[in-house]
Every structure is written in structure tokens, then in C-alpha cells.
């Protein structure tokens, strides 16, 4: 039996993994390609849809990936997903390493509960849904190299242990119990499409059991709740007993979504459900408490242009940190009080005027895309000068580092005696932080950017740069 399914699946996984690497680390510079990359990811696209942000024409890709389980099972999970790829590799590694047979657990959290949890979090503007999204966790791994922070490292280490260590006892646990994209795929999957089935030719050798990445096969039966349609089992059977079965042929084994709910509850199943529900409510309650506590601290954060406001930002940001990876100046950093959503840090860097990288990579459109000339007029904060510490104001010395770096013409220099003092014209200030970054006063800069609660539009610098009187003269004489 030529193992062409396994080989092609592996090749596709590797190729898509490399594509994801490029998209998530911003090695890919073309915005359109990054949009295509983002459209493959169901949950982040879903978050943007909940906020009525639809990306045409790439939404077609998202819809295809989302509804393909109707006919083809969890195709994305089996053939593309980079997180799945990592788990599959880890599982193969553990199988080789462990002489004992891998234990198997059949219980997993019903997809509908995962789905309800995430919708609840999104609707309430709680950014925790980002912690369970698979692709956001994947992006975070690389962002931690770009900007190191200890809490971030903690989150990445926890995630990697789920992905690389947990497969030892329960492969693809993340995919079946936590991943919101996976939950959505399972809800769509009616289990009536193309899938493998074991025929009577089977001689119970058990080779298919260990080849299955989710251990869905047990004692000659396939658990279709766990089956991802990767088709590795078909290749592994020496008798070719497992074959692809085509749509709408009834099965004896396998349960569809409806039958789970309609089946009468047995006592142990009911207890399981009650236990889950209680834990669920407890988790949500504590989340709310923590959020209220942190909410006030987060209001002082400055968020990138395109986010519109800190509130809107929190409702959409999954903390994937693709913006942090793409930022050329490194001004975007994970905010601890914002639960690892990004914020601007003007003491270590500034927002480059000629750049709209973060607007181009956000998968949930928490940072909406605007062309560069529009972005240049979005005001995310206003600069304020502390006259008690600003050098020209307190002494007789010239400085003007702020005016020098301001790209939008917001800092005017007014003559006071022999020196010039800076005065801010707020109409032109876009809150980019170039002034704060350049200010030589330490430890607290004499010019600070205060966040705009709701982003506004600044005056165009053209207002300060009209045509000059002798601008059209062709020839000039030497003035000496």
C-alpha cells in the first residue's frame, strides 16, 4: 500500500506551517498575502464578523474552510493547522520514545460548550478568548522573540506544554477540548460526509489505532467525534480494510450533533454535565471579577491607530501579537494589565509615521486597516509638556528635541528671550510618541502622550506647509 495519504498530508502540513511562519512573523510583506493567511483562521475571522467586519474577497476562503466539514470532515485540522502539525510530531516522538502503550481517554468537552464560552467572552468584551485560540497562541511563540516579556513567556510555555507534552497521554487534547475553531468545525460536521470506515476484512491487528493522531480508533471502532478525517488509518492498514465512504450513506457507528443532545441522559453523563456547568460558571465569575479590577488600569494604555478606542480594541483583540512581530520600531509591547493585549510604549520607542504595518496584519481587525495617508491623520493621543521639567522652560538652554522629531507639525517653537520654547498645537498632534521618545529628560520625560479615549482625526500637516512666496523662482543669486 503506497502511503500517499500520509506523505501528502505531511507535505501539506509542512508547507502550511511555513506559510504560517511567514505570516505570523511578518516575513511576508505584502498585505494581500497576509489577508489570505488570516482568512484561513476561523476563530479570529469569527471574532471580526461578530464586530461586523468582513474582508472581501478573502471571506470566501474562510467560508470554505469553515463549511468544508459538512462534506470533508475537519479538513483544516488534519491537513493544514500548524498547531495540529506540532502535536502530531510530538505524538510520533512520544510513541517512539515510550515502550508502554499510550493510554487513551475518551472524554472530551462538548464542542457546543466551548463555543458558548467563547461567544460569552466576546460579547462581554473580555479578552480571554485569545488565550484559547490556536493561531493566536502560535503567533505568540514568535512574538516573544521579538519582544521578550516574562508573563508572555509564561503563557507560551504553558501553551507549548499542552502542544508538545500533553500528546504523551492525550494527543490533540487541545483540538478536542479547547480550540474554539475546532469547536466550530465540530458543530458544522454532521458526520455524513466523506470519512473512513472499517470493513469486515479487518483482522484486528491494531496497526490503525496507533497511526490515528487523535487515537479515535479503539477495538475496531472509529469514534467519529474525534476523527479528523486525516486518512492516516487508511494508509496504515495492511489489509486495506479501512476505506473512504462517501456522502450521505448511513452509518451504524457514529453520532451526529443532534443525536448527542436527543439521547436520554444516563446518570453519570448528567453528573458530568452538572460538574462542567458549575465549573463553567465559577470560571466566568472569577474572570469578571479580575476584569473589573484591571479595567481601570487598562484605560491608561495607548492603542494603535485603527483600534478606534481601548474599549473597541479589547472586544476584538485575541492577543496574537502579530502586530508586535510586524512593528518596525518595536513600540508595541504586551500589556500585563491588558492581559497581554498590546499597547504603545513611548519610553522605549515611537510609532513610525511612514508605517502602517500593524494595521495590515491584524487577523480580527481589532486594528482596522487604513491606507497610510489616512493613518497619518489618526490621533491616538495628545502630547502634553510638563513645564516644571522641560529644559527650555526651566533654564536658559535650547533643546527642541521634541519639535525636531515631530512628524506632523504639532510642536511649535516660540521665542522667549534668546531661546525657543516648545508649545504644542493639539490639532496637529497624532500621539505617535516621537517627542516623548526623543525627550532627553530622565527618568520621566518632560513631554508625555495622554491617550485619546476615542481616536480622532488630526489636522493635515498641509495646513502648516502652504506654498512659499519665493517658491517658484527659477534662479537664485549667491547671497554673499
Amino acid at each position, binding site marked *: 500500500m503506497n502511503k500517499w495519504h500520509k506523505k501528502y498530508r505531511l507535505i501539506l502540513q509542512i508547507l502550511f506551517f511555513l506559510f504560517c511562519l511567514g505570516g505570523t512573523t511578518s516575513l511576508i510583506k505584502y498585505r494581500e498575502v497576509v489577508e489570505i493567511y488570516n482568512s484561513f483562521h476561523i476563530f479570529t475571522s469569527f471574532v471580526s464578523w461578530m464586530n461586523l467586519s468582513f474582508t472581501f474577497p478573502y471571506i470566501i476562503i474562510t467560508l470554505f474552510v469553515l463549511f468544508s466539514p459538512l462534506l470533508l470532515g475537519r479538513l483544516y485540522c488534519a491537513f493544514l493547522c500548524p498547531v495540529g502539525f506540532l502535536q502530531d510530531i510530538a505524538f510520533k516522538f512520544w510513541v517512539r520514545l515510550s515502550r508502554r502503550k499510550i493510554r487513551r481517554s475518551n472524554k472530551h468537552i462538548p464542542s457546543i460548550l466551548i463555543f458558548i464560552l467563547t461567544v460569552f467572552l466576546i460579547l462581554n468584551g473580555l479578552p480571554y478568548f485569545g488565550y484559547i485560540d490556536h493561531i493566536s497562541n502560535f503567533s505568540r511563540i514568535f512574538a516573544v522573540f521579538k519582544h521578550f516579556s516574562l508573563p508572555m513567556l509564561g503563557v507560551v510555555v504553558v501553551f507549548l506544554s499542552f502542544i508538545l507534552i500533553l500528546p504523551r497521554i492525550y494527543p490533540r487534547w487541545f483540538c478536542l477540548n479547547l480550540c474554539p475553531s475546532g469547536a466550530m468545525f465540530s458543530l458544522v460536521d454532521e458526520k455524513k460526509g466523506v470519512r473512513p470506515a472499517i470493513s469486515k476484512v479487518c483482522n484486528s491487528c491494531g496497526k490503525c489505532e496507533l497511526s490515528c493522531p487523535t487515537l479515535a480508533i479503539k477495538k475496531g471502532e472509529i469514534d467519529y467525534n474525534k476523527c479528523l478525517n486525516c486518512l492516516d488509518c487508511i494508509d496504515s492498514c495492511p489489509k486495506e480494510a479501512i476505506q473512504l465512504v462517501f456522502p450521505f450513506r448511513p452509518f451504524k457507528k457514529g453520532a451526529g450533533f443532534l443525536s448527542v443532545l436527543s439521547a436520554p441522559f444516563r446518570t453519570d453523563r448528567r453528573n458530568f454535565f452538572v460538574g462542567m456547568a458549575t465549573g463553567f460558571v465559577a470560571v466566568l465569575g472569577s474572570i469578571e471579577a479580575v476584569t473589573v479590577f484591571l479595567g481601570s488600569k487598562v484605560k491608561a494604555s495607548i492603542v494603535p491607530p485603527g483600534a478606534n478606542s481601548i474599549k473597541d480594541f479589547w472586544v476584538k483583540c485575541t492577543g496574537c501579537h502579530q502586530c508586535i512581530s510586524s512593528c518596525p520600531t518595536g513600540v508595541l509591547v504586551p500589556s500585563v494589565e491588558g492581559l497581554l493585549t498590546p499597547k504603545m510604549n513611548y519610553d522605549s520607542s515611537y510609532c513610525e509615521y511612514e508605517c502602517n504595518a500593524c494595521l495590515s496584519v491584524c487577523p480580527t481587525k481589532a486594528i482596522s486597516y487604513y491606507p497610510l495617508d489616512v493613518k497619518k491623520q489618526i490621533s491616538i493621543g495628545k502630547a502634553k509638556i510638563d513645564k516644571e521639567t522641560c529644559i527650555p522652560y526651566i533654564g536658559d538652554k535650547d*533643546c527642541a528635541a521634541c519639535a525636531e522629531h515631530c512628524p506632523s507639525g504639532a510642536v511649535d517653537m516660540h521665542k522667549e528671550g534668546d531661546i525657543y520654547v516648545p508649545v504644542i498645537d493639539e490639532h496637529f498632534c497624532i500621539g505617535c510618541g516621537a517627542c516623548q521618545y526623543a525627550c532627553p529628560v530622565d527618568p520621566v520625560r518632560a513631554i508625555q502622550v495622554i491617550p485619546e479615549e476615542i481616536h480622532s482625526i488630526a489636522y493635515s500637516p*498641509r495646513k*502648516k506647509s502652504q506654498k512659499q512666496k519665493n517658491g517658484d523662482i527659477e534662479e537664485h543669486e549667491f547671497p554673499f
Partner: protein
Amino acid sequence: MQKERREFFKTVAKVFSLGLLLPFENLFAKTKRKISLPKKKRDWDLVAVKGGSPAEMFVSGINAMGGMENFVKKGQTVLIKPNIGWNRPPMAGANTNPDLVGKIIELAYKSGAKRVEVFDHTCNEEIECYRNSGIEKVCRSKGAVLLPASDEKYYRKIKIPGAKIVKDALVHKSYLEADVVINVPILKQHSGARMTAAIKNYMGIVWDRRYWHRHGLMEAISEFGLIEKKPALNVVDAYFVMTRNGPRGLTSNDLIQKKMLLLSKDIVLVDTASAKVLGVSPKEIPYLKMAENLGLGTMDLKKSKIRKISIRS
């Protein structure tokens, strides 16, 4: 009768031959000097060129200064220090014109330079500045080495003799190790320093600029000129002059196309001339007078030998 004529002619011949001994040549010498072209070029204090492209004006200007061979000898390492401070395209007049830099690189190699280096400690992100200014492209095509400057490891601490504010500074190794330095700033109005030209261009070779802003910008700019190693030549790009909203500029309306180029070995003199081109009185720029007082050069344009060249009349 014939004997007397012979005697007369002999006397005339004697007088004539005696006359030949007289220094008649001296009587005609002055006229000779007037009509003959000088074999050696005059040593100009300032050469001002106008009317051509930046590269054309440099060729003309450096010729008047005695040719590039006057500054670059065979086998030397040359540092060309332009202004690449800002992430702006060439037509924005915020950075030195890349064609000018390219021509200087070309002529340096022609004069026998072994290695030509270019760098600037930029204000915006180095990669963006180097690329969008057009300098990276021209360095690659002309074979100059574009050096990184955005890490402290490229700098070495040196003392500035006689300075009170900038007693020592971390200066880029390329500046300290090059055999010849050619300072190539662009002339602009400056919100803090009033004007940026040759002296202000020194700011791009140090690691910590904020120190200068913190402890007295004008004093620091002038004092740093006391650095032992000085540029052999200053070339001020005044093709597009940013006359307001400098040093970054808001739109192209901030520029006046002056089509000029100023060359001088005297950094204070060339800045004084630059101030006039900018349309500002040199007295209004505090660091100029301070620099003159420190002995870095002269502001006296009237007493200087200025060569004015107009390329297209």
C-alpha cells in the same frame, strides 16, 4: 666716408648689445603674467557653485578646490558622512542628495581610495532611513560600504580637548579610523538649532545625542567641533533647501530649489555662507559665533577668498 659709417654702425652695435644686458625682460614681465594662465590653482577658502545638478556641481567645485587628489590619496580609507537622519525620500530635502554622495564616492575611488565608507547615526529606524533616502542603492552601485550605526558596540569613547560640556563622547569607529573624512550635510532650517549644515552634521557620529540636548544644545554643537580629528572637506548640499518646518519637513512646499553647492575646508565659514543661503542672518545662529570663538574657523566672508561658479548662465 665709408670708414665713418662703419664706425657709426659699430658704435650702434655696441650700444645695442650693451642694451641687451639690461633687464628689459622685467619691463615686459608684468604683461606676460597678465596674459598667461596660472600654472597652480589658487587656494580658495570657499567655493560656491550654482545652476547644475548636485553631482555636476560637485565635479566643478572639487576641481576649483584643486581636484579630488588634493584630498584623497592612493590607498586611503575615506569616510563620507552624509545626513541620512530621517525616513524620507530624496525629493523631501531631509537627507543629503544620493546622487551627490554617489559622485563623491566615484571620485574618491578614482583618486585611488582603497575603501570608501558611509554611515550616519539616524534619528528614525536605520534600515528605513538607509533605504528610503536612496543612499543604500547608490552605495551598492558605486561600491561604497554602508556601515551600521545603531548599536553602541560600533562606538568608542574619546575625549574632546578643551570642551566643558561635551568632555568626552562615544564616537563611531569608522570616523576615528578613516584616513580622510568628507563631511556632506544638507542645508536645512532646524527647529532647535536654527540651522543644520556642516557643524551640526557632527551630531550623526556620536552615540548619545540626548546628552547634547540635555546639557545645552548650542554649547555642545560648537564644542564638539574641538574634536582632534576633523573632516578634510565640507560639502554642503543646498540644491533643495528646507527653509521652514525643518529638520524633517512637512511637505515639499517647505523647500526652495536653490540649486547650490558650497565647498570649504573651513567648517565655520561654510556654515556662515550656508546661513545666508538659508536666508537667515549668521548672528541669529548661536553656535556659529561660539564655534568661531573656539577657534574652529572664521565667519568673515568679506576677508575670505570666494570662488563663485555658475554652471548654466
